[in-house]
């Protein structure tokens, strides 16, 4: 990679980090602690503490496991899988926390006549952004897998361009099947686990049926749904950023290539900015979930 290209990448990464930092600051400003329902104080302390402990255990395990994954694997494949590994650990923590919540015991049991739905607890804006990132990631790795060429060991890790009769130029890493197959498997697994986790959140028993208890229990569920969405965001956005970055670097490194490759390279670098913003948003949700829980849910 040339010196000019490196400078451009440093500038782009710097811009992404600045955008992310600005977004985190904005989120911290707009999601003030005052937006947490006052009823939260009424949540049975044990349930709130258990779910929080499990959630933090998931985040901590995810950071360690993601770090281990990033440091392992050939040709940077582990680095690409670090995001999904982190996301899966967080999801496991949320599920364990929700399963640990037990309904109020005793001979007299009460229940509210209501239908709890996943969409009532999800952060709609963030969920749409995560779905968009997953769709872009799917489209991108489909294209990179289809266009990848074999390296010296026959693995799909490079992009080849024909410069003349019998003359080829190749650059990598390129997200061919060597990277995309395990990545797709991990992301698909993560999204399925997220679906299961959301069902667990919705179906677990209420901790109480009095009005304050119901509102506080809803806040707990909403917090869990935000965490799940945030984990899915990291799970998709981190590999998307990686694929965009290496693909752009490969596309812009060729000395002979179709003109549109340059535009495609810059377009991929442009995708990095919203992707970094999404990662920052998700990190803010995961690391400060209490600030992200909005007002009490509307009556159903």
């Amino acid at each position, binding site marked *: 990679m040339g010196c000019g290209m490196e400078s451009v990448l440093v500038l782009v990464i710097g811009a992404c980090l600045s955008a992310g930092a600005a977004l985190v600051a904005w989120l911290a400003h707009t999601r003030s602690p005052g937006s947490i329902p006052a009823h939260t104080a009424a949540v049975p302390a044990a349930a709130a503490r258990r779910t929080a402990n499990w959630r933090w255990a998931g985040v901590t395990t995810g950071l360690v496991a993601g770090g281990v994954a990033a440091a392992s694997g050939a040709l940077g494949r582990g680095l690409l899988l670090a995001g999904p590994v982190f996301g899966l650990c967080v999801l496991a923590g949320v599920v364990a926390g929700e399963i640990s919540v037990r*309904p109020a*015991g005793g*001979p*007299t*049991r*009460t*229940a*509210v*006549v*209501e*239908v*709890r739905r996943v969409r009532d607890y999800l952060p709609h804006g963030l969920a749409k952004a995560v779905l968009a990132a997953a769709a872009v990631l799917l489209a991108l790795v489909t294209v990179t897998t289809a266009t990848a060429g074999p390296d010296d060991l026959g693995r799909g890790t490079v992009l080849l361009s024909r410069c003349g009769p019998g003359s080829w130029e190749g650059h990598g890493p390129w997200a061919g099947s060597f990277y995309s197959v395990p990545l797709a498997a991990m992301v698909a697994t993560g999204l399925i686990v997220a679906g299961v986790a959301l069902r667990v959140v*919705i*179906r*677990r*028993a*209420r901790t109480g*049926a009095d*009005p304050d208890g*119901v*509102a506080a229990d809803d806040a707990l569920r909403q917090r869990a749904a935000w965490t799940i969405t945030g984990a899915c965001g990291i799970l998709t956005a981190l590999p998307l950023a990686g694929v965009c970055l290496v693909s752009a670097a490969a596309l812009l490194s060729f000395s002979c290539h179709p003109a549109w490759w340059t535009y495609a390279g810059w377009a991929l670098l442009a995708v990095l900015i919203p992707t970094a913003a999404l990662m920052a948003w998700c990190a803010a949700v995961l690391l400060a979930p209490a600030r992200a829980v909005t007002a009490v849910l509307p*009556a*159903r």
Partner: protein
Amino acid sequence: MTDRPLLVVDTGNPTPPYEQLRRQLAELIQSTALSPGDRLPPLRQLAADLGLAIGTVARAYRELESAGLVRSRRGGGTRVTATAPSLSDSERQRLLHNHAKAFVQQATLLGADEQQILDAIAQALAT
């Protein structure tokens, strides 16, 4: 205070839990606290909230369906039917009287006198 109705199941009561559930849901439907088209909680959710077996809740729903009060559809859940009969004024009065009688009976067993019973009702109405 939530405007969503509550279901209460007393496992120490000799009446089977499914019958307690059926009776309360039937009253909610007939008093139009649950309107035609309203969806009942999913079986698993209600069973988890009440700490009952799914089969217990399913039996209550089946009984309600047999009585024409609800209709279950695969994928659409269990909903109150449009033709569910509503309570007449006399029937409503009779049910109210029965509930009051049961409450007074329980309160008397606890040793409460008439004033304490009236105070308890006033307190419940105020919350």
